């Protein structure tokens, strides 16, 4: 976690290290606010570094570290509001926004930083693979609120598809990574393991990126993060009709909620996605709550106390059923 700690001024590094004290695995976010103590968010709780109050100098230092002393290079990042650093971690930024004719130009006074620790959990999609594969991969949508581990699962799914798992051979995967979250690329080089047969189009608008990928890299599976707008949906439909399998994520708490969103109407109407994987905030990040098929029927549901209530047909949760698909 050297790449995160080095962002902080020398004087603060030790006390932050001490506060986290080897709990890097549980760490989700470090939140910095001007003239306030640092907040540390772990999987189960949030804590405050009351010993540290961040001053303006500290912020200048951190911003300089983020930009390599070259703030002018961060025009896009300051407009989008986040920066990806080595290791695929993301720094969200907020503060005073400058606008030109009502359009956000840049964040000028940076007074809030949110360091989101990238969790590359290789193998976290193991359980899930058998749900989304039936002879061929199925169009899949991960549904969940922020912080439920959608992107982590998506990344590992991409890795497994592109590397192959069990007897299933690897497929060509194209990732359109609009927010540099899936592969966490820096200068086009993925910082996370996204598999052997994966190509990444970094920081590219999804709608255009999907078509670019299909034209240029001939992917068999296309992985995109956080669809939502009408344009995304249009591009998605186009891609699916071009014979590409789509795996994507979306913000939402339940399938019913998504059905009500007008921009997604077409997706549900045409039963574009054959698998919906619902992630729940109440569970640990990355824990799958429910898997639905294209008609919104539940194929599998997590029931901690009664594991035998599982639908064996599509489940691989039990050892003796491993690899039967």
């Amino acid at each position, binding site marked *: 976690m050297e790449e995160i700690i*080095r962002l902080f001024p*020398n004087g603060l590094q030790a006390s932050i290290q001490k506060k986290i004290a080897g709990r890097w695995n549980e760490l989700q976010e470090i939140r910095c606010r001007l003239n306030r103590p640092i907040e540390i968010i772990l999987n189960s709780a949030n804590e405050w570094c009351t010993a540290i109050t961040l001053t303006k100098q500290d912020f*200048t*230092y951190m911003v*300089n*570290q983020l*930009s*390599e*002393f*070259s*703030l*002018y*290079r961060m*025009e896009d990042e*300051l407009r989008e509001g986040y920066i990806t650093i080595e290791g695929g971690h993301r720094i969200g930024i907020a503060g005073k926004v400058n606008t030109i004719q009502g359009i956000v130009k*840049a964040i000028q006074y940076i007074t809030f930083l949110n360091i989101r620790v990238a969790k590359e959990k290789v193998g976290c999609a193991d359980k899930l693979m058998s749900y989304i594969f039936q002879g061929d991969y199925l169009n899949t949508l991960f549904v969940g609120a922020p912080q439920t581990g959608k992107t982590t699962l998506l990344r590992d799914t991409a890795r497994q598809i592109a590397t192959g798992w069990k007897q299933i051979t690897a497929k060509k995967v194209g990732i359109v990574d609009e927010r540099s979250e899936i592969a966490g690329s820096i200068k086009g080089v993925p910082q996370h393991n996204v598999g052997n047969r994966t190509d990444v189009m970094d920081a590219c608008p999804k709608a255009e990126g999907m078509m670019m990928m299909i034209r240029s890299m001939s992917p068999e599976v296309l992985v995109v993060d956080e669809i939502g707008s009408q344009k995304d949906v249009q591009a998605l439909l186009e891609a699916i009709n071009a014979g590409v399998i789509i795996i994507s994520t979306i913000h939402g708490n339940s399938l019913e909620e998504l059905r009500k969103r007008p921009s997604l109407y077409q997706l549900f109407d045409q039963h574009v996605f054959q698998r919906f994987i619902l992630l729940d905030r109440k569970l640990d990040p990355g824990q799958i709550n429910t898997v639905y098929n294209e008609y919104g029927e539940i194929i599998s549901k997590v029931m901690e106390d009664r594991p035998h209530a599982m639908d064996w047909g599509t489940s691989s949760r039990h050892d003796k059923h491993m690899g039967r698909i």
Partner: protein
Amino acid sequence: MQWIGALLLVMTSTWVGFDWSNKLSNRPKHIRQVKNALQILEAEILYSQLPLHEAFSVIASQIPSPTSKFFDYLYEELQHDKRDLFYVWEQAIEVLTKYSSIGSNEQEILKQFGRTLGQHDFHQQQKHIQLTLSHLERELEEARDHHLKYGKMAKSLGVLCGLFVVLLLL
């Protein structure tokens, strides 16, 4: 014995005079180099969008010594010490002063510029570079004037001073 001493004295004062005149003629040259370097920096920032330490290494390879030493130093220092750009910048100005003939005004201008470097967006960064360039232009004018005015005088003054002291002592 006396004559050897007298000769040494004249030689020393001549050398001092030549050194002074050299400084006067080098100053505009070095200011021009710094100006060129800043122009390259502007291009690297605006068009290549390189981060500063990479821009420094590009400049160092394109500019003659001693200004290249300044950028080389910045590049080397920023490679392994990423703590404070302004601190490194100040140190580098000292290196530059050691190896070149730039005056205290130019040092101050560069120091002010160092404070703004990398803290602004493209537009403002460009403005700061332009401002620094115009300041340097002013200094360049002055340095050129000084050179024309005192360049020759410095040389002859050195020799004559030597001779004068020798005559006094003989």
